[in-house]
């Protein structure tokens, strides 16, 4: 076999084994999108009920008063929580959310507030460190299937930072999952909580006999941090669904690319094979003619 043919065949084989991998990753990502979506749905009732409980507290006490709801008059530092993935191979997923995060930090700085960076996901840690940002704290190893436990760890750490006035505000940059085809990098403020966010309905008249144990203020002390953790959890879930949606798309493109390449290379291989055969025939014919000439004369 000729050198060129061998080379082309080797490339085809290698592309095909890559294709098998990308195809498998595409299928895995597709099944994970579905699971992540179901988890987003499953998390909704709790958040809804938490809000309802807070609405009841507001109804009984007139208005909610709590440090987590208070705007600080002259904020100096704002926590910026950036949610990225642990692995790449997800198209522009990480690039988009990191761009959004840098944009957010720019806006924070414009107000004269210093951003303090918190990161979830290895990719974000790598990128931000490379760009020379200092990272206050990071959490990794959960981006594809975030559990509530992880959200609790992150949420509690940030609430503590807020309580100790290491940060005066908290923002999060993450990726909103719209559909398997549309995901959008976005940012939200998590702290302080806007009161109208937790009390959506106009509080009606207080109920005549409402039982609180312990008193409403102490209950609120538990409800509000829980609410923040739930928001972190929801954002992690949305990000995980988005990550998988982007990965599926990227892997689908890679698989199709491999198919196209195989097609082109197969033609090249066929041509090379044909050239070799032609060459051989020519050699045989040439030799026969030479032999004929030699014996005929």
């Amino acid at each position: 076999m000729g050198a060129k043919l061998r080379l082309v065949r080797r490339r085809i084989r290698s592309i095909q084994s890559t294709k098998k991998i990308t195809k498998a990753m595409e299928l895995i990502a597709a099944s994970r999108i579905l699971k992540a979506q179901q988890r987003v749905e499953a998390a909704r009732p709790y958040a809804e009920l938490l809000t309802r409980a807070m609405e009841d507290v507001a109804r009984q006490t007139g208005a909610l008063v709590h440090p987590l709801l208070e705007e600080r008059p002259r904020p100096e530092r704002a926590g910026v929580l950036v949610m990225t993935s642990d692995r790449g191979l997800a198209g522009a997923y990480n690039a988009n959310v990191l761009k959004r995060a840098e944009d957010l930090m720019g806006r924070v700085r414009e107000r004269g507030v210093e951003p303090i960076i918190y990161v979830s996901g290895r990719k974000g840690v790598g990128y931000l460190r490379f760009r020379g940002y200092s990272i206050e704290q990071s959490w990794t190893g959960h981006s594809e299937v975030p559990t509530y436990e992880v959200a609790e760890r992150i949420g509690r750490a940030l609430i503590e930072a807020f309580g100790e006035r290491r940060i005066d505000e908290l923002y999060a940059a993450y990726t909103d999952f719209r559909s398997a085809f549309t995901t959008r990098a976005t940012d939200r403020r998590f702290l302080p909580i806007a009161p109208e966010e937790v009390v959506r309905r106009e509080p009606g008249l207080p109920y005549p006999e409402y039982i609180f144990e312990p008193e409403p203020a102490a209950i609120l002390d538990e409800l509000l941090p829980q609410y923040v953790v739930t928001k972190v959890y929801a954002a992690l879930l949305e990000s995980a669904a988005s990550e998988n949606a982007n990965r599926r798309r990227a892997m689908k493109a890679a698989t199709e690319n491999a198919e196209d390449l195989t097609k082109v290379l197969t033609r090249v291989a066929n041509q090379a094979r044909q050239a070799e055969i032609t060459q051989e025939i020519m050699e045989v014919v040439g030799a026969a003619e030479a032999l004929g000439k030699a014996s005929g004369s």
Partner: protein
Amino acid sequence: MPLDVHVVTPEREIWSGQAAMVIARGVEGEVGILPQHAPLLIRLAVGPLRIRMDGTQEAAVVDGGFLHVTTTEGVTRVDVLASYAEMAGQIDLRAAEYRVQELQRELGQRDDAGLRAELAKAMARVELAR
């Protein structure tokens, strides 16, 4: 009118259905909820949650959280919101017992409020699963 009961954790709703009575352990003592109970919002302690139906009973263990009771249009709704909760039938007794032993060993070495809270959770599971 029976109670409309929902046991919900941040990850999912672990149980919902109709019941005659709900008994939970609040931070300030046990509470029993019957239909038409006054509105209530209390903090739960780590412990068992019992849901009585006509003749049968469901039990779960909750690691704290809240009990919220509201009545709208004659239907009394009971929401149990817990960070972690498990139905009695889903508790892995052997794993829970192992966890109790492990935590007791650790507590023998150093005393820590977090560890003690974990031990209470594990013990509540063992107690309920037995």
